[in-house]
């Protein structure tokens, strides 16, 4: 079986679901010319009615996806870069998230809005956003943040088949990872199931999107020094697999959050709060957050890179926690 990239996983997921269900169609800016490679061959396979270039009107075409979904279609909207969601906040927050609710369940909105997290490449502050957490703050939107090609394929297919609106955030730092992809056309990863990406015993690391590969590298390095990290990828943020995280922290007694988004009100913040509420008695030290500080992302590579989570920052956090055992008496976990 050939190893395939994250981008190829997106392409396969979309292609298989469009073959399976003629209600599925894709629209967005520059889909036909296929800028990123997620729609290679689609126009020939499905035609321009189902593979649809849009004007640069995010509020218009994201809103149109809601209308199309309400009448029985299953749109995939490719919004390219995640900051392009902002012009459509009204449609996403007031219409897509709330229509089912305010009409008492009369509306169904099976749609997927895809956008990528394209940071760390000198694209400056307006093109480097990682805004998934802010969408967690309005009920009614499911959110997936796959970190590798296999998860990407399984989660995106599940999202397309889901009867609720799903936002899919695709981290550019995961694009190059290659994996073998299941060929089963019904390979699905259910939303709301996190995964232990690496088992460990000393510290639970909850990592999101591009934070996952970094956390795994940090785990490799620390293993050589006798510190064992358990790396958990929630994979979907709504629903969030809180149980998997809490269970791991009850085992390790220590936790580090790795989240490429800004610190305040981040996934790191939400998961930390959950751990404190549900596993406080197991904690041997503070929960540490390795995130992007609450400043904007500058253009100059000289000062951009150090702002994101890195292997070094995770390693430093791990040492701080293990060291914390000397200051805070360890207690036996249940």
């Amino acid at each position: 079986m050939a190893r395939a990239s994250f981008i190829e996983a997106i392409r396969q997921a979309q292609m298989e679901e469009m073959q399976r269900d003629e209600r599925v169609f894709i629209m967005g800016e520059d889909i036909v010319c296929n800028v990123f490679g997620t729609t290679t061959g689609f126009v020939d396979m499905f035609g321009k009615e189902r593979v649809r270039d849009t004007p640069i009107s995010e509020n218009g075409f994201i809103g149109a996806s809601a209308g199309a979904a309400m009448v029985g279609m299953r749109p995939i909207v490719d919004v390219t870069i995640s900051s392009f969601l902002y012009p459509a906040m009204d449609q996403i927050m007031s219409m897509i998230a709330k229509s089912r609710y305010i009409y008492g369940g009369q509306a169904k909105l099976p749609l997927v809005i895809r956008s990528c997290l394209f940071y760390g490449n000198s694209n400056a502050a307006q093109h480097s956003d990682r805004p998934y957490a802010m969408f967690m703050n309005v009920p009614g939107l499911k959110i997936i943040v796959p970190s590798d090609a296999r998860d990407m394929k399984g989660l995106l297919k599940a999202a397309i088949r889901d009867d609720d609106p799903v936002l899919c955030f695709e981290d550019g730092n995961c694009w190059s990872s290659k994996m073998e992809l299941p060929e089963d056309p019904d390979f699905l990863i259910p939303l709301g199931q996190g995964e232990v990406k690496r088992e460990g015993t000393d510290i639970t690391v909850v990592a999101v999107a591009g934070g996952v590969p970094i956390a795994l590298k940090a785990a490799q390095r620390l293993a050589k020094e006798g510190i064992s990290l358990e790396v958990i990828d929630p994979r979907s943020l709504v629903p969030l697999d809180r149980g998997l995280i809490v269970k791991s922290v009850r085992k390790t007694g220590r936790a580090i959050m790795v989240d490429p988004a800004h610190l305040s009100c981040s996934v790191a913040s939400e998961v930390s709060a959950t751990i404190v509420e549900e596993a406080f008695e197991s904690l041997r030290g503070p929960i540490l957050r390795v995130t992007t500080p609450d400043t904007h992302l500058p253009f100059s590579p000289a000062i951009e890179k150090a702002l994101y989570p890195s292997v070094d920052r995770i390693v430093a956090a791990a040492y701080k926690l293990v060291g914390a055992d000397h200051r805070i008496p360890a207690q036996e976990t249940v």
Partner: protein
Amino acid sequence: MTHQANDLSLEKYRRMLRIREFEAVAEAIHAGGEVPGSLHTYTGQEATGVGACIALRQDDYMVGNHRSHGHPIAKGAALGPLMAELLGKVTGVCKGKGGSMHLSDFSVGSLGETSIVGSGIPVAAGAALGAKLQGTDRVSLCFFGDGASNEGAFHEGLNLASVWKLPAIFLCENNGYAVSTPVSQAVAVADIADRAAAYGMPSAVVDGQDIDAVEAVVTEAVERARTGGGPTLIEAKTYRYAEHAVNMGRVLRDRGAEVDTWRARDPIELYRAKLIAQGVESEALDAIARDAKEAVQEALRFARESAYPDQLDAFDDVFVERLPIPAYLTN
């Protein structure tokens, strides 16, 4: 006049009266404290809503706005669930989750009555896209106000509908005011319909008090949309007699004479006079009026006798599957 035309004429009269009576009762029970929240009445605009909906099929789509009571009644919705919704009851058309700004009955083709100004326009375009992709001949009609025509969503939705030649009708109910701001202070063109030129879209201005005129112009737009001719922008010049919302106090303090001028062209009175001039017996029209009153009273009885939703219902319909219930509500 043929017998069939007469039936349709009486149906238009009936629907306008049902709206008028529904709003009169809604205002009264709101004043009596029975209706929570705000109330945006449609009184004065009946000919626009009914004239437009009578030109649609039952299975055509419709998207409306915060002034939501008139649209579903115009499209033929049952009154009981609408009134129950105003009272926040579980038998409400939205199970008590939407209220006055969201009286949307999907069983008559509604896809929402939405309260963020302009937000329904892209959705209506999307429904038209869906109809087109499915190969049906359904059309999608969007009601919005003069205020909405200044929103970006108006521009984006109309442009999208036009470049994709979607089967959509954009019907601006220009009632003269966005809350308190007169349209003359907010729109630089003479007619909002002029804006259609920017989207290469046909347009029309119509007297929104004249139900037959509204029906004729919408019928032409529907025909164009159904046969692949793309969208139309229609501006109906109409008027709301009440304030923007009944609990907003008197925003429009100085309307005095203007209201009287418009009341002199009340759409229901105009149509009644026309029907009588065409030979319809006034007794027949009085009987329709009595039936409308009775139907609204029956709706009110139904609403009052209905139960409120269960607390746990608050966690339904966020997603298809019910949300987990917080512990503080289950203990």
